[in-house]
């Protein structure tokens, strides 16, 4: 009879239940038992992974390589997940997130590029696996840089923090540009290591080399798979954090920092954790970038890219880690979808011009979104964080039934 009791008390708890298509889907998904979720999730991920092989007719980009676009999406998805920890979870607006991306990419570049004075591929980093070994080092370096940025600045709030982090992002780029003896300045670092695996006579430098242009399994596809695997690992990690004490502390800080402090949440410590974790994920994405492109130079890490990452998080829906991945997909895929396309469903269009205007459209989208749907396209819903998801499902159903939005007679027998 426990369900009935919850059903009677619940209607007052969750405020004004919505019931859009998304909510129905979410409710249905949350109500599924774990094995069923895996049963649906695994084939779905497999389908996503197979996209560059299947190359569906309309979805496939025409102006650029589809595998490459998906690999870029993978990197942006990681960035969006990392930035979502900082912005969406902990509510700290970071406009210089590109700095961490740059630090990750440059760490790999400095360790493995022949142009760099600190090149280690001939000493203790093996030539074949240099990229793989550089990955944890780069993540550690970005985490430390997050600590260095966070310690003095996280005492600031809101707008001030935004501007200081913006300055940080710009300083990182200027350092890369100005320290010519180390970073190669504007010339950048080339010949960055990538994993040397799967060497065949046609793919002399392995499947991850930029020289592997054999469709459909070209190097973009392989990097897409690597990023997909990393996304799943990071999602599990971040998802567990969200449900832990740390995640609850973040939500408390986001909603009301003073109240959280008074209730005994060490806000500074947890804000620093959010920064550090967000930074490491950004660095991880930078490592992927350096490996895939095998070249880093300062213009890639312009602050405007930071805004683009933020765009992905805002459009997707802050706080919703699956939503921000979709946001990243929109940001990366849409311009590439139009690139090189001269007609869409028979209607003639100038695809290249539309792709050129991407910042204009993103800007307009941000402005309209903020007026009509500030929570993003796929907003996060507040859950009963401290209870199990079964309780959440029951409570939610009952609330919806009470509001008359759902047929009252459902299988739980509540009411």
């Amino acid at each position, binding site marked *: 009879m426990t369900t009935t009791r919850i059903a009677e008390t619940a209607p007052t708890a969750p405020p004004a239940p919505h019931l859009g298509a998304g909510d129905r889907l979410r409710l249905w998904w949350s109500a599924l038992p774990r094995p069923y979720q895996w049963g649906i999730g695994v084939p779905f991920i497999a389908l996503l992974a197979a996209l560059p092989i299947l190359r569906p007719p309309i979805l496939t980009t025409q102006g650029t390589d589809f595998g490459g676009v998906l690999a870029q999406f993978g990197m942006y998805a990681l960035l969006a997940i990392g930035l979502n920890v900082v912005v969406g979870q902990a509510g700290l607006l970071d406009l210089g997130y590109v700095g961490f991306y740059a630090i990750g990419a440059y760490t790999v570049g400095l360790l493995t590029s022949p142009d760099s004075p600190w090149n280690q591929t001939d000493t203790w980093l093996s030539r074949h696996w240099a990229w793989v070994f550089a990955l944890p080092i780069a993540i550690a370096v970005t985490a430390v840089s997050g600590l260095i940025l966070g310690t003095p600045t996280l005492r600031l709030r809101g707008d001030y923090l935004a501007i200081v982090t913006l300055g940080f992002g710009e300083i990182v780029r*200027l350092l890369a540009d100005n320290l010519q003896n180390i970073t190669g300045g504007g010339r950048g670092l080339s010949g960055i290591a990538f994993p040397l695996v799967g060497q065949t006579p046609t793919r002399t430098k392995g499947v991850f080399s930029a020289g592997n242009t054999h469709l459909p399994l070209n190097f973009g596809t392989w990097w897409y798979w690597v990023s997909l695997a990393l996304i799943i690992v990071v999602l599990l990690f971040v998802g567990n954090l969200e449900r832990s004490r740390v995640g609850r502390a973040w939500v408390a800080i986001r909603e009301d920092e003073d109240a959280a402090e008074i209730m005994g949440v060490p806000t500074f410590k947890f804000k620093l954790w959010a920064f550090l974790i967000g930074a490491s994920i950004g660095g991880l994405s930078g490592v992927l970038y350096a490996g895939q492109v095998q070249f880093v130079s300062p213009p890639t890490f312009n602050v405007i890219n930071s805004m683009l990452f933020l765009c992905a998080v805002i459009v997707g829906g802050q706080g919703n880690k699956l939503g921000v991945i979709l946001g990243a997909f929109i940001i990366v895929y849409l311009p590439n979808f139009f690139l090189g396309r001269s007609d869409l469903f028979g209607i003639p269009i100038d695809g290249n011009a539309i792709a050129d205007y991407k910042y204009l459209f993103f800007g307009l989208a941000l402005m309209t979104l903020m007026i009509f749907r500030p929570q993003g396209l796929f907003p996060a819903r507040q859950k009963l964080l401290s209870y199990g998801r079964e309780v959440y499902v029951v409570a939610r159903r009952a609330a919806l039934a009470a509001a008359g939005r759902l047929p009252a007679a459902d299988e739980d027998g509540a009411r």
Partner: protein
Amino acid sequence: MLASFDIGALGHSFWALTISGLTYGSIYALVAVGYTLVYGVLRLINFAHSEIFMLGMFGQYAALMMFGFAPQGDAYDMGVAQTLMYLGLAMIGGMVVSGAAAVGLERVAYRPLRRRGAPALVFLITAIGASFVLQEFVHFVLPKLTNNTLGGLNAQQPIRLVSPSTQFTIFGATVTNVDIAIVVSALALAFATDRFINGTKFGRGIRSVAQDPVTATLMGVSRERVIMLTFLIGGVLAGAAALLYTLRVPNGIIYNGGFILGIKAFCAAVLGGIGNLRGALLGGLLLGVMEMYGQTVFGNEWRDVVAFVVLVLVLMFRPTGILGESLGRARA
């Protein structure tokens, strides 16, 4: 590795650097007033203010083109009276464009959000979006509208009305006519703004809303009108600053040319105490001078880093800035 520290050069050309810093600083100060006023009234960092400044640069350029000037290699170098007249007209052109853009931005982007009582983050993101839109408008749309005479990917070919010529020297540092024009007009505008805010009925309205919006509304001050006026003043000053900036940096008229300058002006506003009108002026001049000293000591390429480091240090050790009082509390 790091640039060599060249303290000797600083001592050697101290006065020349100070004068150069003051010219840049007075430009920062005018732009900083826009940030500070809007912050004082709305508690909002108008992130798109740098784009308002950028539009001002195009506005004065368009005005000069309307008066028949065309980009050419040499400066026009007309008589003093004629030059001043055309500079004044160009400045009005910049002011009109910037002022209209600032008020338009407020109407289109910020007012709907205020109606909905959106949180600060939403305002900031809207400002970022508006910044994108304005930049890309000049980048792609403006050249189509003006038959490729304005806007586009590259900087405008400069129209030089006057070439810098030395007027006199102080302590061995030369002072050019351009330096004088920039500092004098910036100070005059800053003084006029200060008088307007602190000495007129409209200014009292702005200060009252900054101090306590609810009470001000109860006393019959129209908050909406005050907000519009605030954006207008900020925009107009940014337009004036845009002309002064192009006198100093003729090649700077480009679609993304406002970004760094906007951030520096914001640094100046924070340095002086954000929300404080006189603080913005002081902060601008200080930042301009510090930047010049820093550039000489550390090397030219570190110039932009100086502003950011100053910003971080100020926020860490004295977040209220040097003068540190808000617009509302300043001699209300």
